[in-house]
Structure formats: structure tokens, C-alpha cells
């Protein structure tokens, strides 16, 4: 069980260590950004000083490492403050009745008897809540009268600075927008429609929740059952699910050949991204899953940790708020880390060692991801479900198969309507199984307790301990002299 991906990061120390240090401290800097409010020019000065010091102390390896860490930290802090100030400097005239005109930029969100549209407006974005019908689509330019209010923090951190409620008539004055996005959204809509044609409710909504992460249409009673049984994560956040499912497809294709596994996974990722309308969460998950596929394919030749940090940093450049405020961002990265670094440790545990390789890997990687995301889930959903270990064990193993089937249903129904229904029957069995478990376990009176916690120090301790565990297991396996040829996670 010697080599697995986790070792490549630590074994190849050398130059990569500086890169890792700088990137990791950049992320820490962004994390601390809203706590430490520093003037931008002051930070530029400090950064210049550090670079100068680097030139002087280049030969002294530990000082050089320290300076890299400091530099990453300062750039992270500076970038967050720069971004935050820029966003804060945009002023909309809140509270006044205005004639507003803007183009729909995101995928419209229809929930219940309302429709929500994100519009581009005066160099920023606003959210319009209005009647369910008539429906407008991406690219439509809308004109209406309304009062812009300040948006909720959740939207503010997505760069949406205003909220308008309009019951007045809306005039469609034109149509713009990017052709590629238009077609991707169209594909997603077609996919969702064909799911809806093939499955009855609540299965259709649940299916959409599983693969698209949209839980809008899931009935409230079922939603609260998911909450009580600690299984909301399977529908709330698509990114994490998509990562898992692509790993699964990879493992399955790996039975046949290594090449098929890699290229098959890439094709599966691409199909996933397009069919789901390419939301940020799925693109991120796709990149991470592609990375895992590459890791499995290339083996020791790539440094997983550096690529992971690099991708995270690039994504944070696009939106530094994501680190603290985007649940989907947090969950997909943590799930990835758990899968890649905790998975192999778990697979060595005595109680699972005996399993056949395929099941052992799937089980331990899923469990690793679960452990990593647990604190965030408790913090975000404010609830500890006492029976969640049982419900999760009963449910998680069918999630990948259910997702594959949901995709099969959607695609089959796009080709021939009746075919989608036949595949739908099989998919329905899985979805029904999950819903029956969730509904029945949520009836147990002691199923869950609400914890409204705003403190986060315990999460730091949790992740610190996990980090220590990973570190020691790496040291231990590095000390083991005998090396087994086939790395366990490569299937």
C-alpha cells in the first residue's frame, strides 16, 4: 500500500516546496483578508521589501522559504483588500424608484410562483424577483420600474449588489448575450425538461438536485426530511457530487483499461459540464475530477498538491469571497482533499482491508471526502443529525449509480421519449430507495438536533488534527522500506 498520490507532494520536496509555501500562504492571506484591513500601498511597499530581501537572502534556504511564505501572505491580504474595496466602491442608488434596464446574465431561477433573474446593471449585477410567467431567458434585455434594495450578504459575495421586487409589467426591449452560453443553457434546459418528462415528482426535482444541485422545487417536507437525516449535502451542492461520480465512472472504466479510464473520465466530465449548463460549481468539480483522473493516469509524475493549490488560487483570483462565503467552493475542495489524502489512509484500516479493491477504494474515498466536509456541513446547515451516519451509509453507496442513471434518463429521453421512461423506471428505483430511507428515518424523534453555532475555532482544531494525521501517515509510509509496486488508489 506504499505509494499513493498523497506521497508525491511530500517526496518531491526541492523547488516545489517554495511554490507550495507561497500558494498556501496566499490562500491564508485571502482568508485573513477581511480581518486585517490594510492600506493597499502599504502592502505594496511590504511586498517590495520582501522581494528585495529575497534577492539578498536567496542562498539561505530557510530564510528564502520564510520569505516566500511572507510574500504569499502579503499578496493574499492585498488582493482581498483590493477586490473588496473595488466592490465596495460601486454605489447604486438604493431606495429610489428608478427606470431600470438590464440584460439577464445568469440562468433564470424559477421557484414556486416566482422567478428570479440576475441582470447586468451599471457595471454590477442586480437580482430581480418577479412573477413566474411570462418566462424570460438568458440574454433578454428587460426594462421595468422598481426600487433597488441592498442585497443579502449571500448575493453580495457573488457580486450581486442589488435586489428588486417588481410586480409591474416588464418590457422586453431586446436580446443580447453570448451565443456559446446561450446554447449551453439551452442544453441544460432540454436536459431538465427531459428529466421532467420521464420522472414524476418529487423524483424529477430530486434528480435535478442530485446532478444540478438545484433544490428549488423539492417539496418543503422532503427538504426537512433531508435536513433531519443529515443528507442535505447530496442535493444541496452539486460540485461535491460531481467529483464523486466522475471518480466512480473512472474506477468503473478502470476495470477495462487504464487509457479508457483516463479518456473516458475526461469525456464524462465534459458531458457533465455541458449538460448541467456549466455552473461554477460543476466547472470546479470538473477540473478537480479531471485532476484526479490525471493523477490516477500519470501516477507519480505529477505533484497533486501544487496543482490543487494553483487551481484554488486561480479561482480565488476570480472571486476571493468564495473562500469564506461560497459553500460549494469549500465543499468541493475539502471533498477533494479528503478523497485524495484521507482515502488511502482509510483503505489501510483493518476493518476495510479485506474488501475487494474496487469496493474498498470507492468506500474509503467516499468516506474520506465525507469526513473532510462534515464540520462545514454542521456549520452551514446548523444541525447535527444523530442518525446521519446510518442514513449516509445506507444512501451514499447508491448515489453514484443514481446519478449515472439520472444522466442516462435525461439523455435517453432526449433521443427517444419512451426510452427515457424505460431508463427512468430503473432510475426511479434508486431515487425511491433514497427517499424512502430519508422519509422513514426522519420520523425518528431523536433524529436530529439544531445547533446554531457561529464559532469556528473547533473547525480549526478538527482540520489541524486531520492534517497531523495525514502528515504522520505519510512519514510512516515513507519510513516503510518495502515498496509495493502497484499503487492502491490507481485501481
Amino acid at each position, binding site marked *: 500500500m506504499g505509494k499513493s498520490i498523497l506521497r508525491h507532494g511530500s517526496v518531491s520536496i526541492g523547488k516545489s516546496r517554495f511554490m507550495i509555501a507561497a500558494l498556501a500562504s496566499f490562500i491564508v492571506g485571502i482568508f485573513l483578508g477581511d480581518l486585517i484591513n490594510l492600506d493597499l500601498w502599504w502592502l505594496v511597499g511590504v511586498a517590495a521589501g520582501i522581494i528585495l530581501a529575497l534577492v539578498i537572502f536567496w542562498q539561505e534556504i530557510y530564510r528564502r522559504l520564510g520569505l516566500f511564505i511572507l510574500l504569499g501572505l502579503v499578496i493574499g491580504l492585498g488582493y482581498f483588500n483590493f477586490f473588496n474595496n473595488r466592490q465596495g466602491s460601486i454605489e447604486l442608488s438604493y431606495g429610489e424608484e428608478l427606470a431600470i434596464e438590464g440584460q439577464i446574465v445568469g440562468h433564470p431561477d424559477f421557484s414556486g410562483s416566482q422567478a428570479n433573474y440576475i441582470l447586468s446593471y451599471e457595471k454590477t449585477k442586480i437580482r430581480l424577483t418577479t412573477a413566474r410567467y411570462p418566462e424570460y431567458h438568458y440574454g433578454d434585455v428587460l426594462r421595468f420600474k422598481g426600487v433597488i434594495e441592498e442585497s443579502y450578504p449571500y448575493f453580495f459575495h457573488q457580486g450581486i449588489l442589488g435586489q428588486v421586487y417588481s410586480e409591474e409589467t416588464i418590457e422586453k426591449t431586446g436580446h443580447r448575450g453570448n451565443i456559446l452560453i446561450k446554447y449551453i443553457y439551452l442544453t441544460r434546459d432540454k436536459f431538465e425538461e427531459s428529466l421532467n418528462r420521464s420522472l414524476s415528482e418529487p423524483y424529477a426535482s430530486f434528480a435535478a438536485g442530485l446532478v444540478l444541485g438545484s433544490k428549488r422545487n423539492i417539496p418543503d417536507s422532503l427538504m426537512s426530511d433531508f435536513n433531519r437525516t443529515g443528507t442535505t449535502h447530496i442535493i444541496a451542492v452539486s460540485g461535491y457530487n460531481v467529483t464523486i461520480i466522475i471518480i466512480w465512472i473512472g474506477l468503473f472504466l478502470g476495470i477495462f483499461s487504464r487509457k479508457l479510464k483516463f479518456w473516458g473520465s475526461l469525456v464524462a466530465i465534459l458531458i457533465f459540464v455541458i449538460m448541467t449548463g456549466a455552473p461554477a460549481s460543476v466547472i470546479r468539480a470538473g477540473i478537480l475530477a479531471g485532476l484526479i483522473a490525471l493523477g490516477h493516469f500519470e501516477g507519480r509524475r505529477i505533484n497533486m498538491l501544487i496543482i490543487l493549490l494553483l487551481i484554488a488560487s486561480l479561482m480565488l483570483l476570480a472571486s476571493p469571497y468564495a473562500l469564506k462565503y461560497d459553500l460549494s467552493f469549500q465543499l468541493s475542495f475539502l471533498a477533494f482533499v479528503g478523497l485524495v489524502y484521507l482515502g488511502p489512509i482509510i483503505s489501510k484500516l483493518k476493518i476495510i482491508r479485506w474488501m475487494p479493491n474496487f469496493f474498498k477504494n470507492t468506500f474509503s474515498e467516499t468516506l474520506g471526502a465525507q469526513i473532510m466536509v462534515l464540520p462545514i456541513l454542521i456549520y452551514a446547515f446548523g444541525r447535527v443529525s444523530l442518525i446521519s451516519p446510518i442514513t449516509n451509509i445506507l444512501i451514499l453507496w447508491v448515489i453514484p449509480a443514481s446519478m449515472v442513471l439520472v444522466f442516462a434518463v435525461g439523455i435517453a429521453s432526449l433521443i427517444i421519449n419512451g426510452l427515457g421512461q*424505460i431508463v427512468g423506471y430503473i432510475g426511479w428505483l434508486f431515487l425511491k430507495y433514497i427517499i424512502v430511507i430519508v422519509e422513514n428515518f426522519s420520523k425518528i424523534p431523536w433524529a436530529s438536533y439544531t445547533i446554531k453555532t457561529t464559532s469556528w475555532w473547533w473547525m480549526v482544531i478538527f482540520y489541524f488534527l486531520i492534517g497531523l494525521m495525514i502528515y504522520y501517515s505519510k512519514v510512516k509510509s515513507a519510513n516503510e522500506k518495502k515498496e509495493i509496486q502497484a499503487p492502491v488508489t490507481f485501481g
Partner: protein
Amino acid sequence: MKKKKFKLQLLLGSLTVAIALIGLVLFGRPQAAGDLKVYFLDVGQGDSTYIKTPIGEDILIDGGDDNAVLNELGKVMDFGDREINLVVLSHPHSDHLDGLIEVLKRYKVDEVWETGVEYPSGGYETWKKEISDKNIPDKFVVAGDEKNLGEVKITILYPLSSIEKKTIDNLNNASIVNRLDYRKFSVLFTGDAEKEAETQILKSNLYATVLKVPHHGSENGLIEDFLKIVRPAVAVISVSKDNKFGHPNGSLIEMLNKYAVRIYRTDQNGRVEIDSDGENYWVKASQ
């Protein structure tokens, strides 16, 4: 060698499972039971009734104001049934119409009955567009129109003359009133009809076992003269908890009690199911 065997096993295994499942689906579908089933769906503040005839055909009257009807249909329709034979829109107010739009998108609807009344709304425009895009036969009905689905007969009592493309001041009085007969058992559907509409049809065949109380039990809904003629054994009020209109009205409940009518309310009883073999009937409430 071992790996090859595993591949073969895997392939054969999944094939067997797939065939078994498809067989189960194709031949194991529950046969339609011999009773007529009428479900007053729990769709919040709005109206929606799903009817399954003894020979397994489906009728949907109104759809509530959002997707709640889809969840209810998921529960009451046969597994795998994606077809509705007849959809009736009583009148185009959003609490009767909006849910139906999504029904048209998701189910294969064979025929639509409505009045064709003029009413400006985004939902109504979308509904009309969906019907014409899908080429669904769309009939503007008047009193006397009827349709037999096996032994079940659906008959229109109101509007008395065509109101196609007409503007009606109080759209509630443009509601379709229709009855459903199965041997000796009958249900009267009233949409949101108010006094003005009700008084016009007092001479029609109103007598029914079950009355869907007009206009969610509003005070300007059911009038006593109408109730006297219908003489229902059971009244169903489709209404949501704590609605802003104060439905159902207290004096209306008193009036129903005075005539010894058993009252079921979707806000208290959830989905109300009434089954009948044509002689007897059974009421089941989901809550």
C-alpha cells in the same frame, strides 16, 4: 484469466439485472382498480382535482398556483403513467392555472377544455402558447358539452353560452361548472363561481353526492339556494392554511353544517380522496 472472468461476470450480472427491471416495469405495472377515484389535491391556496376513472383514464381539473400539483400527481398517479386524457381549466386565474402550465410541459395531455375567455396575464399567454406549440386539441366548452370515459361521464353546466374571446368583469363568474357521473355517484365542480353564475344554473342538473365548494369557501361563493338543490353529502373546500383572504368563511361553514353536509378541507385534511364503485363511496384524508 481471472480478470477476464470478472469482466464477463460483471457484464452478465448487469445485463440480468437490467432485463429483470425492464420486465418488472413492463409486466408488473399495477392494473387499474375498478373504482372511480377523485382526489382533491393539497395545492395550497388554489384548486386542483385529479380524477382516475375505473378504466384508468386521467382527468385533471385546475392546477393550483405553482408546482405543488406535480408533487401531488406524483403521489396519486400510477407509477409510470405520463399521460393525462383531459385537462380542464375552469378559469384563468393564476391559482387555478399556473400549475397546469408545468403539467402541459411534463405530461402528454390528450385534450384541453376551457372557456377561451379573454384575460390579460403572463401565465395565460404562456398556457395558450404551450397548447398551440404542442398541438393539443383545445375545446372551448359551453353547457351541454359532454364526454364519456368508459362509464364515467363529464358534463358541462356553465357557461350557458360561449364566452370565447369575451371579457368578463368578474372572472370568477366565467368559471366552468361541470359534473362527473359514475352510475349513482356524482361530483359537482364549481371553479370559483359566485352568486351571479350560480343563480343562472339553478334549473340545471345540480344534484350531486360531492360538492367542490366554489371559490375556496369565500363568503361570496356558495349561495344557499344553490346548496339546497345540490344537496351534497360531502363538501370539499380547497384552501390553504392561514390564507390572506380569510377563506373559508365562518358563515359558510355554518350553512354547510345546517344542511348536515360532511366537510373536508385541504388545509386540515390534506389531500382528500373519494373513491366510489358507483353505489357506495369512501372518503380518505391524507392528514
